[in-house]
């Protein structure tokens, strides 16, 4: 045995030498160890908090429009001495549906209906703001506002917030003048008005709505037919939009009054 070892020692150990490490045995103080452990704990907890609260992994789309935060769709159409305005009634927060009965179409007076799509908080704020302005108008002018004047009022209110706008797209539908001419107006979020003669669309389902309204719209429809056409257009468009649906309401405004009907939509 010893002879073999001697051989090993002599051949290998001549070539391979163990390194010369001048190691010192470190004996840290207890405070130092405590400080190190505390620091390590802080790092771990900070990481956990960052991952869970500050920047959690989110399910859903980033870089999406603020208009898709709540999601809604409204369409208005003109007929023969009548107008119809229809919208869905879903109130959601991103992908979750919170309520099924949120109303976004408001009656200004017997001649004017006003609908808004977009961020729900701005819809509620503006509803109160316009209610206030219309009450003041009625008191000062001692008459009801005409839909055209109201549309200009809406546009002016939105443009005053040009650099810091409300995130809504309003639609005004009404009957103008002695002979009850249908009036439609839609504006963008800073109040650029357009006055089409046929139909206006707004909301997350607006692109589908445009297509289906262009196809089914006819001029000079009677109130019954107008109701059928606008309902079918809304239902078709809302079926193709994930953020709208869960119930819909249609108002048909004629010189005799407003007929409100609720429709069954897909509940998904």
């Amino acid at each position: 045995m010893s002879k073999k070892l001697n051989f090993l020692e002599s051949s290998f150990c001549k070539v391979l030498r163990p390194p010369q490490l001048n190691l010192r045995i470190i004996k840290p103080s207890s405070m130092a160890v405590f400080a190190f452990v505390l620091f390590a704990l802080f790092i771990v907890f900070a990481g956990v908090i960052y991952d869970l609260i500050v920047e959690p992994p989110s399910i859903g789309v980033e870089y999406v429009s603020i208009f898709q935060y709540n999601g809604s769709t409204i369409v208005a159409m003109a007929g023969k001495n009548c107008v119809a305005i229809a919208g869905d009634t879903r109130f959601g927060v991103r992908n979750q549906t919170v309520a099924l009965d949120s109303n976004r179409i408001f009656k200004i007076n017997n001649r004017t209906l006003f609908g808004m799509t977009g961020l729900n908080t701005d819809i509620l704020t503006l509803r109160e703001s316009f209610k206030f302005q219309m009450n003041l108008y009625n008191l000062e002018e001692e008459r009801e506002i005409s839909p055209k004047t109201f549309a200009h009022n809406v546009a002016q209110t939105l443009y005053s917030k040009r650099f810091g706008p409300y995130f809504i797209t309003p639609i005004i539908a009404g009957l103008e003048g002695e002979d009850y001419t249908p009036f439609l107006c839609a504006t963008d979020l800073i109040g650029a008005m357009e006055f089409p003669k046929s139909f206006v669309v707004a909301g997350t389902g607006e692109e589908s709505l445009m297509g289906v309204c262009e196809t089914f719209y006819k001029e000079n429809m009677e109130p019954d037919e107008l109701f059928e056409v606008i309902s079918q257009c809304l239902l078709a468009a809302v079926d193709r939009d994930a953020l709208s649906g869960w119930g819909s309401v249609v108002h048909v405004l004629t010189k005799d009054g407003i007929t409100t009907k609720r429709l069954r939509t897909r509940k998904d």
Partner: protein
Amino acid sequence: MQKGGFNFDLYQRNVELIEKNNYKVPKTTKTGTTIVGVVFSDGVVLGADTRATSGPIVADPNCEKIHRISDYIWCAGAGTAADTENTTGMISLQLELLSLSTGRSPRVRTALTLLKNFLFRYHGYISAALVLGGVDFTGPHLHMIHPHGSTSTLPYISMGSGSLAAMAVLETGYSSKMGEEDAKSLVHQAILSGILNDLGSGGNVDLCVIKHKSMEFFRNIDTTNSKRKFRKKLPYMFKSGSTKILEKEIEEKMRKMEIVNEKENAIEELEEL
């Protein structure tokens, strides 16, 4: 109640909502546009297309881009639709008050100065590119105004996304000795060139001819683009009752009196009680 001018109340909230959550900035309605102005011997011709876009979608296929500043001073606008409408409206207001207080009919140069000072104050944030044309007592004038507030005075101008297409036509056809009919047809061709070759312009052609104490507005002078060739002749008819209704509520304007109970011997019944 609101005071005049711009209101910046919601600016802070919007910064938090959009930038911090990485949302896209919402699209405003733009007028991609081809707008053109030409000076001829007696006056000015302004022309514009009629398409308003919201991103890639046509928001309004037939909007009016030629705005009235004064009776014989008109302005065509390109850029953000709300900005062009409100800027021209504001300057029209100021010019009217000025002309009432000075007792003189307004000059085109005054409108130009008011517009350029207004736009320069906002350093281009009000995105309105304008072609201002009119005839006052000093003669016909035509100016172009950029969103940052710089202006040029030229005999023929084109602005908007279709300006290159329109300028090509103007450079070919312009001559300083044009009459009214030549100028109208040149502007018409320039706008058509913009409509056909530029994706941001489309729809119909609007023309405005301004001469001394006379103004003619030709709304939709050319509607060849708006007639859909293969439209179905008999549109789809929905049968009455094809939509199922859950609830129905009728709010009638006139309340009719309804007879609820009709009895012949009502007096006898009362006596019994």
